[in-house]
């Protein structure tokens, strides 16, 4: 036993001995447990789709051709190493019909978890839809592939006409929110209509409003606001009110809110390459941000590499609650291995998968690419509640990673 061992013991003891926990941690623990359980359930229901997809993965990759999204031009608000776009996508691409995929697979029961008080999300994995034909020929197919498995006979033609694109595709502004991907805090983006489309107005909406997607959250204290946003050269100086400086979150979440502000501000003001965040007295506030400290008070560019900040997979074409037509374009962005994004559309109450496939992003990790695919639903009924899912299948075991979901409904 060296003297260093003893010194180390005594140093650690001395450091920790005065630490006392909060008096009643139960409420916080239970709230967080509900969040974790909600995410796990989302992953489990996504996992069914992944399990079904395993067969499709064995199909030669060339058959993905129909899903291959054209490379979408990117705009230049990002720093040089980041490929991203804050413009809503929505241009149609050639249609690739996706056959309906009944999922007769019973959902594997997750590890027994205690029942929580909170309502469970609609995406909970349950039984197979009774309305779907139990065709023995049904097999998972992706992107109109003609793999070794037989396809069901001619799919019924969708009868409903195409509805106008979702309201996200015009005049909407990019607002970033905090969410989680694979257990880590990450930024997700929504396109939102804002009454005041100035940078300050957009940032105020970001701080005061809630994200539409319940998987994302806003960590700003109630009453947070932007006093002004002033462009000088390529630096946008954003002045916050006192309330906004008094947030509280673990350091990772706290510092991600600074990135949230920077990414949203630079999307709102494309001429701005850097953002300086100041308090009511004009002094920089990032170094002491929310009692944690998130770097220096110098103007900040968007963090690079972007994958340390942005969610690996993002659905951009739809917001939570949007209507979808029988045929629609599903698109987004991704930083994923070999640029392959898995997607599916499932009935939210039965878990039955109505369509699924792969899309190829315009770039693979570590670059951020855009991806797009055209989805044709077969047998959807007006008002039906669906879930759009996009994720990365783990290169190791095919498991669902980086899942992003949007609850939508069939228009009618």
């Amino acid at each position, binding site marked *: 036993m*060296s003297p260093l*061992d003893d010194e*180390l013991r005594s140093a650690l003891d001395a450091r920790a001995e005065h630490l006392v*926990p909060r008096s009643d941690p139960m409420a916080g623990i239970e709230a967080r447990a509900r969040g*974790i359980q909600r995410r796990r359930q989302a992953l489990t229901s996504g996992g069914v789709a992944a399990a079904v997809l395993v067969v499709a993965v064995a199909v030669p990759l060339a058959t993905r051709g129909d899903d291959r999204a054209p490379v979408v031009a990117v705009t230049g608000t990002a720093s040089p190493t980041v490929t991203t776009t804050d413009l809503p996508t929505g241009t149609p691409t050639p249609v690739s019909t996706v056959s309906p995929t009944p999922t007769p697979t019973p959902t594997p029961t997750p*590890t027994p*978890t205690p029942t929580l008080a909170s309502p469970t999300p609609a995406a909970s994995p349950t039984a197979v839809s009774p309305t779907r034909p139990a065709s023995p020929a049904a097999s998972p197919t992706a992107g109109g592939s003609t793999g070794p498995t037989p396809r069901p006979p001619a799919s019924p033609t969708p009868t409903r006409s195409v509805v106008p694109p979702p309201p996200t595709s015009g005049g909407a502004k990019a607002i970033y929110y905090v969410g989680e991907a694979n257990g880590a805090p990450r930024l997700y983006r929504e396109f939102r209509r804002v009454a005041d489309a100035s940078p300050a107005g957009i940032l105020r909406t970001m701080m005061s409003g809630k994200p539409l997607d319940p998987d994302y959250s806003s960590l700003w204290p109630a009453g947070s606001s932007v006093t002004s946003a002033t462009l000088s050269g390529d630096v946008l100086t954003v002045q916050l009110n006192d309330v906004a400086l008094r947030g509280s979150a673990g350091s990772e979440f706290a510092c991600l809110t600074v990135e949230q502000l920077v990414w949203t501000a630079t999307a709102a003001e494309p001429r701005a390459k850097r953002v300086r965040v100041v308090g009511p007295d004009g002094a920089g506030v990032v170094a002491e941000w929310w009692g944690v400290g998130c770097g*220096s008070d110098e103007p900040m560019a968007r963090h690079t590499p972007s994958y340390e900040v942005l969610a690996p997979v993002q659905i951009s074409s739809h917001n939570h609650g949007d209507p979808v037509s029988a045929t629609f374009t599903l698109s987004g962005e991704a930083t994923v291995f070999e640029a392959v994004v898995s997607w599916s559309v499932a009935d939210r109450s039965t878990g039955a998968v109505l369509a699924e496939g792969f899309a190829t992003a315009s770039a693979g990790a570590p670059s951020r690419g855009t991806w797009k695919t055209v989805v044709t639903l077969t047998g959807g009924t007006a008002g039906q509640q669906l879930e759009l899912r996009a994720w990365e299948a783990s290169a190791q075991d095919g498991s669902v990673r980086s899942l992003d979901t949007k609850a939508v409904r069939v228009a009618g």
Partner: protein
Amino acid sequence: MDAEERDAFRDYVLGRSRALLRTAYLITGNRTDAEDLLQTSLAKTYLAWGRIRERENVDAYVRRVMVNTHTSLWRRRKVDESPMEFVPERAGRDATADLDLHDALWAALETLPKKMRAAVVLRYYEDLPEAEVAQILGCSVGTVKSQVSRALVKLRTNAGLTDDPRAALPAALTNGAH
């Protein structure tokens, strides 16, 4: 979770929070992260409570969750920040030599990779046997030994304890077990 199970969990939390928070603090290096990490770990334990409370060493389970959660979490990269900028405030102007050494060791601890740091905390603060540390970290006993050995070398070097260079080499290294 029924009322009885919830009570048992609550009792566990109230009884063990202090010790667990201290471990979390030593692993993360600051109070905010420690509370965050502990809350997440206890929430995961809560969800698994029915499964583990009768069958497992709950402390070991929580420690395992804590280390795994911490090592998998995204850490914000601090641009242009050298490890020495983490040096905490001194305990006091009149600090004794002991306190200075503690500070130096603490600062040096900040330079260790997460998993190595966790190994040191579990081994020297929790005083857990190597086998148990290995179980918590999900690695072999040999890996624990080499991680701890390398940690001690780094700590000694980074804490500036160069007065006795021979003592800087733990037995494991001088035996060629590296």
